[in-house]
């Protein structure tokens, strides 16, 4: 297969950045999208040029590191698929493929397609945990948890923190990410004790990192590689209002 690759090049956070266009030949339809970029980079290196910098690691759709905005969609055209799990058979021979980094104020570009997502870490640090020190736990079967409830928590916990939700959102809101964590922990009995504190403090961190507000367009869910449901955002709002009305502090 043959492609024309139009890719964002930006040599560092302060560089203005621009698109560069590269023709690419000899691509196999069984290759993954990132292997296609590997080939492009090997070609660039053969010409003694700087290869395209991009984030990637596990290449099996779970680490959440890969982050490419492909033809106007985070992670490209396939539903529920990360960039690393996207294959070239999803494109037509001769296509022009446009690749950009995540674009959001809270995710500054480091180089080319690589962005800084440490804002997500700071949201988790604000309360995305259950406060239990090592060694304090009771027997795991001491608290039975309804299977459906546990499944619902798991459905939220599968978030890989890639940031596609933010990249797709016109407000660069991270509500889907935030709501997935709040749902995962607040649904479970273990997470109830600090549920109110958690939602208040994580919401505050979300806003101070520069993520925008949610206007319920649902773009985030549409591109989420793990299909995190919008129900989580509804739950987050409910938890937040409840916590705001009843918390004594914060």
């Amino acid at each position, binding site marked *: 297969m043959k492609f024309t690759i139009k890719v964002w090049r930006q040599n*560092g956070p302060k560089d203005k950045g621009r698109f560069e266009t590269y023709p690419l030949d000899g691509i196999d339809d*069984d*290759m*993954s999208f*990132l*292997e296609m970029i*590997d080939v492009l980079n090997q070609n660039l*290196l053969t010409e*003694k*040029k*700087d*290869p395209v*910098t991009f*984030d*990637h*690691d*596990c*290449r*099996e*759709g*779970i*680490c*959440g*590191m890969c982050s490419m905005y492909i033809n106007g969609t985070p992670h490209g055209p396939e539903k*529920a*698929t990360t960039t690393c*799990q996207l294959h070239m058979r999803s494109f037509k021979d001769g296509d022009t493929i446009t690749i950009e980094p995540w674009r959001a104020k809270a995710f500054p570009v*480091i*180089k080319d397609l690589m962005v*800084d*997502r*440490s804002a*997500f*870490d700071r949201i*988790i*640090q604000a309360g*995305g*945990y*259950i406060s*239990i*020190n*090592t*060694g*304090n*736990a009771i*027997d*795991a*079967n001491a608290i*039975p*948890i309804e*299977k459906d409830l*546990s*499944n619902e*928590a*798991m459905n939220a*916990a*599968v978030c890989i*923190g890639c940031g596609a939700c933010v990249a797709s959102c016109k407000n660069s809101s991270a509500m889907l990410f935030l709501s997935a964590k709040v749902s995962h922990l607040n649904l*479970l009995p*273990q997470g109830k004790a600090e549920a109110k504190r958690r939602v208040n403090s994580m919401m505050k961190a979300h806003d101070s990192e520069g993520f925008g507000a949610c206007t319920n367009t649902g773009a985030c869910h549409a591109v989420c590689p793990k299909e995190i449901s919008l129900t989580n955002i509804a739950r987050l709002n409910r938890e937040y209002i409840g916590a705001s009305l009843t918390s004594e502090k914060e």
Partner: protein
Amino acid sequence: MTRLVSKTPEGPLADKWTNYKSKVNLVAPNNKRRIDVIVVGSGLAGASAAATMGELGYNVKCFCFQDSPRRAHSIAAQGGINAAKNYQNDGDSVYRLFYDTIKGGDYRSRESNVHRLAEASVQIIDQCAAQGVPFAREYGGLLANRSFGGVQVSRTFYARGQTGQQLLIGAYSALSRQIAAGTVEMYNRHEMLDVVVVDGKARGIIARNLVTGEIERHSAHAVVLATGGYGNVFFLSTNAMGSNVTAAWKAHKKGAYFANPCFTQIHPTCIPVSGGFQSKLTLMSESLRNDGRVWVPKRKEDCGKDPLSIKEEDRDYYLERIYPAFGNLVPRDVASRAAKYVCDEGRGVGKTGYAVYLDFSSAIKRLGEDTIRERYGNLFSMYERITDENPYKVPMRIFPAVHYTMGGLWVDYELSTTVPGLYAVGEANFSDHGANRLGASALMQGLADGYFVLPYTIGSYLSGEIRTGEISSDHPAFDKAEQEVKDRLQKLLSIQGDRTVDDFHMALGKIMWDKCGMARNAEGLKQAISEIQALREEFWSNVFIPGDASGTNVELEKAGRVADFLELGELMCRDALDRNESCGGHFREEYRTEEGEAARNDADYTYVAAWEYGGKPNEPNLHKEELVFDNVELKTRSYK
């Protein structure tokens, strides 16, 4: 020559750990505040160790090369985590988990460490459930279990096919809590490029900031390496692209012995290689072998046919045939070799002939498609995305791939390497899995080391450091280490040759896979050693790296890692050559039984091979830790 002292506590096996914990020196809370600990790596072992030591009150600095600690490769583990809970009432116990692990490791691990691991397994599940890890549950609300290879009980806890992710998020959340509390300082996008040894003790590291390119000094009273395994020496493996041996290798060159480097695990159920630009192999969880049946056609001429058209009587369910007692659930090394043999006979399937079928049709008939979807849904969709085939209808095609490395830095009972103050936890050490790791045991070991072992054992060393005071990073040893790191980066950049880093990496991977992979022999290993030496020489005169050392330079990062793999690869071959027996993942073609199974040589090789760096990569010195088995009888492993 240093004698290897395992520091195994006295007393009966089941009491060793309890006695140790009761007697180990402690560091008082007011002193912990004055002690700095560096943890390199943020996977299950690293994140849990950093979080727990933070909770205890130490000043912790934690480093990872990824953009967030949550992305460490532990996240990719699918199937589950073992624990001797005996919730299923099927006769499980701490002793049985210990025994299965010793036997599964083909009697090449240390009894005391393995028993401690089995003891800790019980606490891990409690800890993780309390953190909110959404383990699978039964309708009664209690935790569910599944079976894994090499055992006859159901002791594996799981969270769909994403157990590693959920456990890592648990450890990451505990770590995040300590970062917020100020006890742990996190350094994302940093790579450790050397360990600094002052007067014989590990006192810090030299790290490169992968965003700015700056070389940084970090001092501490102790350094913990939780840097994972070295499977990427094979280029193609199930490891993440960034997984590397560099931290462990630098430690090795600074005096830490490297143990059993040739013990690598080739996982039987991976998606087969499809093309020359393939960058990594994807694992399909071993849990699939609970319900999937492995087969190839009985006749070579059927191999190209549509599998659905091949009649039941023309299929060879070879694992069920050869190993009736364990069937499709034989340990990984046995299953991988069996797949290799049937493919070598010419009965492999798929484009390349190097694949076997993993068939779910009888399980779907027995349990219904919904049950199978609930158990393995995400794995099936991952398979379909990669191969474009629907495994609910057509059997999966699988083939073995490099997955895990049992070898690693030699550690004693306290998880200390041979360099005082330098510790290794998780896959980075060698200690618990012998020559073969059982499924769902890697997560167990990572978390046992990080949550429940290291935070105790490191106290034994740190209690002697309370009067040391702050460690200065101005010591000449820091100057020297920093200069060496900088010189090496400049050397790599100055070569400006014609071959890319990946090109060298692929060439090394091919040598390793062909000659130090699923089956090895003396002649091949000798060839591999000289080929690797030649490749290494070419690397240092002909590699091409663009740009400079300031700012992000991915090729430079990769080059440093490949340079270390080029040295490690030779050591692996030397170790494989030294071990004139077949055991676990190490299969020497010269040493097999009449039936073709691995022939272990307990009389001569019941030892841990711990290699000391000899100043040059081709001059390592071998030290032996004799393994003593007081509690289990060494038997020929049989799964028949």
